């Protein structure tokens, strides 16, 4: 699960690194991705694992739209406006989903990856394992893209120093938009994966958003590889918390972790800020 969190968080981290903006609607992006995967399955017969690229594409587009339609206009605005912009988007999407799809829990039936895997004495759900593997693969792809490809490097450069990058001829607007597209795509894949074993409903984004924030904080805002390690840590903490204390408080523990991180080590475990 940690790997999935990492993927969700990766997009968030990238966006923040690029323009110091926290996407408060990230959880809702995830929720949308899950719905997309669901509809790909129910209408098109595509198993979510196959549907992942579809979700990635759709969410990438959503990311691009969000950037051009909304974010671009508030980049220069006071922070209050920025917070409200993405926050408003989140509210809009969440209730839009509720309006359009209703509040019922949806599930994908009979996904490809079903059943359990037995490792030693541990029983692991096959969907979860599959999800982690795909998430890891996606993460690896992202990492390679960022560090090897020309566009990826340009992106990283923009994140590190916007002005220097633009002086070098890198079109920052395009980079920002790209950041949002990739962020959306990451979330798209993650959502599709989650759809294989998670209930789908309009509010599902909430807890994941919180987990994503913690993961990003832990891994260091803007540090994409760190997010992977952080994701694993968060996943572990969450699982442990679920075992040791009443499940309702699971997220409180995660939140406490967030507080601990931002207060005592704002750069996260591996961050550069």
């Amino acid at each position: 699960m940690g790997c999935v969190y990492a993927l969700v968080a990766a997009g968030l981290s990238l966006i923040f690194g690029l323009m110091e903006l926290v996407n408060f609607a990230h959880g809702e992006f995830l929720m949308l991705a899950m719905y997309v995967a669901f509809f790909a399955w129910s209408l098109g017969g595509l198993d979510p694992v196959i549907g992942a690229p579809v979700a990635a594409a759709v969410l990438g587009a959503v990311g691009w739209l969000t950037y051009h339609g909304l974010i671009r206009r508030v980049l220069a605005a006071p922070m209050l406006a920025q917070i409200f912009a993405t926050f408003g988007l989140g509210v809009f999407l969440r209730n839009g989903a509720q309006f359009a799809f209703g509040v019922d829990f949806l599930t994908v039936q009979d996904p490809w990856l079903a059943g359990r895997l037995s490792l030693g004495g541990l029983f692991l759900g096959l969907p979860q394992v599959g999800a982690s593997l795909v998430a890891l693969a996606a993460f690896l792809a992202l990492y390679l893209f960022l560090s090897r490809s020309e566009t990826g490097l340009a992106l990283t450069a923009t994140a590190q120093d916007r002005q220097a990058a633009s002086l070098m001829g890198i079109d920052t607007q395009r980079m920002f938009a790209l950041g949002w597209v990739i962020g959306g795509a990451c979330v798209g894949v993650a959502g599709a994966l989650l759809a294989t074993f998670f209930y789908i409903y309009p509010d599902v984004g909430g807890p994941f958003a919180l987990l994503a924030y913690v993961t990003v904080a832990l891994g260091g805002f803007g540090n994409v590889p760190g997010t992977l390690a952080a994701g694993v840590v968060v996943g572990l903490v969450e699982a442990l918390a679920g075992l040791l204390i009443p499940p309702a408080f699971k997220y409180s523990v995660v939140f406490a972790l967030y507080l601990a991180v931002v207060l005592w080590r704002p750069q996260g475990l591996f961050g550069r800020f």
Partner: protein
Amino acid sequence: MRRAPAALLLLAVLAFPLVFARPFPRHVMIMIFLYGALATAWNILAGYCGQISLGHAVYFGIGAYTSTFLVREAALTPWLGMLVGAALAVVVSQAIGYPVFRLRGHYFAIATIGFGEIVQTLVLNWDLVGGARGLFVPIKRPDSLLNLQFHDSKAVYYYLALGLLALALGATRWIERSRRGYYFRAIREDQDAAASLGVRVAREKHAAMAVSAALTALGGTFWAQYVLFIDPESVFPLSLSILICLVAVMGGVGSLWGPLLGAVVLVPLSEGTRVLLGGTGKALDLLIYGALIMAIAVIQPAGLMGLMRQLRGRRAVAPRGEARRESAA
């Protein structure tokens, strides 16, 4: 506002229940006053001092639960319960503020959401205060001011809500004109520069939080006595925090009348959609809110007040205190 129209408006507001005796119009006005008060309270912390709290419903819930619990268990009049609730809210606000005020901007906002969720979860699982089932305020007849319950007419609730609004506005105005008010605004602009001038930033933030929390908690008690039933879902949810924010932002964060203006615009909208659309209304009005928040963020972060200022063509406007001085000079 100039003298004559303002006085007329005040008169109209005071006379409203005498003219409109049906419950629904009164209810709408009561909601306007309540949300206006809550948003004004939030504005003290967020608008003036610049600390965007997205978990303010916490204090609303604390106020509601404290007074209700005391009515049930100790037969304490809600008037005293209200004060206890406010005190408790202040204590909690200081406890939350301690870690959270070290954070800035986005991190702070996220943290406030988190605390809101934690408290809601806590209460949801706490049987002593009813858990998920909520608490009923014991019905007391006949209607009495002491017990703060009126079953036949909303008139007294109307004036009480108005009183709460007046209190919130009065507190804001008083702060605005004091040294503290200037300090708040400096902190909002640049807290480090403020510190270099001797401003005790943390102390000021805590003060803003305390006042804001106390007022919000009073609103919570009022609500409990008005609807006579509370549960975590109705007094603690994130959506309430959002609503309070939205009302303030819509009208104009950082100005005295802004939040009330926001309430005047949004409450009828909300009540209207609820009446027109029934069940699905819940999602639709939040949907509209989401769109509105985005629109405000993009078009005019200073809300309606900012919009009005723009239309009047005053570009380099000096905020409240000094502007009046300017025009008087």
